[in-house]
């Protein structure tokens, strides 16, 4: 950064004005401008003001994020934001970074939401992140202490009133000695003057008493609220289940920070942390809440060797390949066939083309849902009308469901192939065709030996991306069959038409049908990525070879 303040020098004293505006490495105009005072590059015109305003907004947002991250103690986000702000300001106020000025906005999003998430997937794949292992050890200890709270034996019942201070809830209680006290989640019970009627607090200074209706609306908050009895955690806290009576609860577990152990005060069992991120007793029993730890390659070995996963997993991998290859193959063949048929000038060609590409213009989520209705076993149009009432289980028989998926994908996908083949056919060099004709090649021979190879050269990259797309065609599978019919023998929620990406979704447990297992799901994502990357790399190599031959 040679000149941190581009405004310091006036445009009029700047001799080689335009040349300075040339990007580094770009072609420098040799003609020196005779009237440098006309250079637009150094003016504080509208463009500069717009830039200044935009950067002010960006910086303000950045400072807000940094501050919030500080409050929330999210050091990674804080660091990332500071770095981004520094880079952004440097790029837009330096003169040496012209190309970056154009690329940076895209790069910021690319890095945050794609590169980082890829890296993060890689990291999660080596942890046991998931249900029961959701957070750090400190959080797990806190959660365990709360979860294992028990009502203190023989403790008196406290007449209780739910009160609110703004959004914050609190309890006002009448203590056994007749005094009143009030407190919230963050401030322990403290004596307070209050009006008591029928043994319940009815008004209290500084708090608003909630009526029945308001309590019902915030029922979950009320039952989850813990008001500490005193500043000492060991004294326990007041909780209520009915919003009228409170009891003192203390945790049955005690965490010994020095020894890093949990002790159950009722049974006397001592739990020590183990390698898999849980507190474990001598007899092997564990406490319910654990924390994230590195588990190395465990997730990968689980997928390939654990009997619950390995069988279904191999079937899923196989079917994913079959599905992707069949999808590309069928759509390409039909698309190419139709493109060849429509590649001569015939009457109404435009109308045909427009109608043939209609499926391509249907939103991606409408088509599978629509077809799931059409193929419905009992009421679907295909069975009822086209096949005269046959009850064919298109979507519920393992083999027919697979067939249906490929057939529906054909309907969805052939217009795209039709489009690109039409384009490719029209750009074929006509002299090669004529040469073939002159040499006396038949129509079929010309097509097979000249047209098809040339067509493949120009469409192969798109076929590869189409393969990658279908390899991960989540929406189609999920919406048409939901992965079903289920494997009968499997203890995991997977089915005959599940492909890898829907398997990742099921395993991750984001739909609530299975316990969350982000670690295993991420490991499977990594496996998919490796497969896709290998195939693409190999295919692109061969494409280049094809091009060189021609």
């Amino acid at each position, binding site marked *: 950064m040679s000149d941190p303040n581009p405004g310091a020098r006036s445009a009029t004293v700047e001799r080689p004005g335009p040349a300075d505006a040339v990007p580094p490495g770009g072609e420098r105009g040799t003609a020196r401008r005779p009237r440098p005072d006309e250079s*637009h590059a150094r003016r504080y015109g509208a463009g500069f003001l717009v830039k200044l305003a935009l950067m002010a907004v960006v910086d303000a947002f950045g400072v807000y994020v940094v501050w919030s991250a500080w409050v929330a103690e999210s050091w990674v986000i804080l660091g990332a934001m500071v770095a981004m702000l520094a880079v952004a300001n440097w790029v837009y106020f330096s003169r040496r970074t012209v190309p970056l000025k154009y690329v940076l906005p895209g790069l910021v*999003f690319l890095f945050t939401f794609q590169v980082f998430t890829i890296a993060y997937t890689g990291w999660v794949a080596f942890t046991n992140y998931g249900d029961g292992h959701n957070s750090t050890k400190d959080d797990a200890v806190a959660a365990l202490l709360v979860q294992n709270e028990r009502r203190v034996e023989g403790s008196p019942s406290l007449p209780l009133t739910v009160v609110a201070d703004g959004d914050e809830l609190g309890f006002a209680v009448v203590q056994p000695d007749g005094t009143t006290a009030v407190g919230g989640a963050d401030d322990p019970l403290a004596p307070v003057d209050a009006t008591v009627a029928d043994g319940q607090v009815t008004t209290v200074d500084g708090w608003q008493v909630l009526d029945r209706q308001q309590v019902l609306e915030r029922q979950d908050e009320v039952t989850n609220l813990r008001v500490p009895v005193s500043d000492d955690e060991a004294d326990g806290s007041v909780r209520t289940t009915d919003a009228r009576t409170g009891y003192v609860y203390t945790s049955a577990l005690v965490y010994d920070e020095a020894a890093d152990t949990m002790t159950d005060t009722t049974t006397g069992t001592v739990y020590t942390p183990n390698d898999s991120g849980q507190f474990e007793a001598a007899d092997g029993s564990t406490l319910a809440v654990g924390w994230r730890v590195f588990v190395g390659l465990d997730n990968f070995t689980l997928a390939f060797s654990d009997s619950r996963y390995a069988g279904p997993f191999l079937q899923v991998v196989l079917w994913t390949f079959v599905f992707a290859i069949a999808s590309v193959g069928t759509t390409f063949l039909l698309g190419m066939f139709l493109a060849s048929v429509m590649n001569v000038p015939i009457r109404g060609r435009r109308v045909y083309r427009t109608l043939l590409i209609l499926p391509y213009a249907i939103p991606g989520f409408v088509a599978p849902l629509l077809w799931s209705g059409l193929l419905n076993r009992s009421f679907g149009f295909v069975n009822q009308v086209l096949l005269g009432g046959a009850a064919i289980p298109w979507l519920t028989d393992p083999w027919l469901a697979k067939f249906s998926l490929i057939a529906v994908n054909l309907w969805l996908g052939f217009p795209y192939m039709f489009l690109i083949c039409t384009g490719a056919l029209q750009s074929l060099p006509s002299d090669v065709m004529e040469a073939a004709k002159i040499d006396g090649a038949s129509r079929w021979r010309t097509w097979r030996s000249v047209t098809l190879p040339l067509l493949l050269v120009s469409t192969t990259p798109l076929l590869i991306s189409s393969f990658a797309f279908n390899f991960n065609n989540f929406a189609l599978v999920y919406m048409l069959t939901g992965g079903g019919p289920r494997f009968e023998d499997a203890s995991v929620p997977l089915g005959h038409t599940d492909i890898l990406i829907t398997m990742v979704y099921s395993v991750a447990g984001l739909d609530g049908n299975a316990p969350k297992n982000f670690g295993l799901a991420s490991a499977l994502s990594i496996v998919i990525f490796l497969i896709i990357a290998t195939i693409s790399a190999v295919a692109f190599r061969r494409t280049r070879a094809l091009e060189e031959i021609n």
Partner: protein
Amino acid sequence: MTATTLPAATRPAVPARRRSARRWFAEVGWRHVVGVVFVVYAVFPIVYVLSASLSESGTLTGSNQLFDSVSTANYAALADTRFWEWMGNSVKVAVVTAIGTVLMGAAAAYAFSRFRFTGRRVGLTTLLVLQMFPQMLAFVAIFLLLISLGQVVPALGLNSHVALVCVYLGGALGVNTFLMYGFFNTIPRELDEAAKIDGATHAQTYWTIILRLVTPILAVVALLSIISTFGEFVIARVLLQSEANWTLAVGLYSWVSSLLEANWGLFAAGAVISTVPVLALFLFLQKYIVGGLTAGSVKG
């Protein structure tokens, strides 16, 4: 891609040339047969959903008689559901994403096309590689990332449309830069140089000259972005949690996945309405889209 409409010589069965009907069929006629067959195949589900949406009974069973009855009951019933909210969400997300995609993609393509800087080749290659990693493969990580972001900036957390748009924009550069890069390269550099000699800054050249010349590709990219965002399902389903924030894809799925028979009429009406804008845009800009796709295909 010039759809030539019939020079007279190829008109079928021209008596002057005494072509027999048989010969005509072998050369041209069978193409019509193929065309009609596949047009029926392509169009029949669309006709069916239109018919089902106009059917009086809202069930799957009652929708099998094509255009048996015509009523707008299903469309009217949409007003009692969250359909229009979802439509609004989808349109909002798709349009904002498209604008962002075009702005960021065009800027990046301009830089790669016009400037020679260190890291240019590496940058282009990296984009090509990243393109191979579909963003939705990382949906678990995206989900976890947004949980963390949401604790700092609630607007960027789960269940937020801003966050959803940001995630979509994260994938914008990889897919579109190449399409635009190729097109930018076809704009003669002499134009930039002339502007430069006249004293224009790079920003002025970009905004006032280049962007106007590349409008066709901008339209294509915007449209493709709208279509794909509008239809995107996985990430929207993972990120958007409250029903009021759902997009059409998530909402319509919820109708049909739970009670197929009961909600079929509603679904059909919703499907037709959500198809119309996309279809209209597509047909309206067909020329550009086909041009853009085929340009991509031929470049290789």
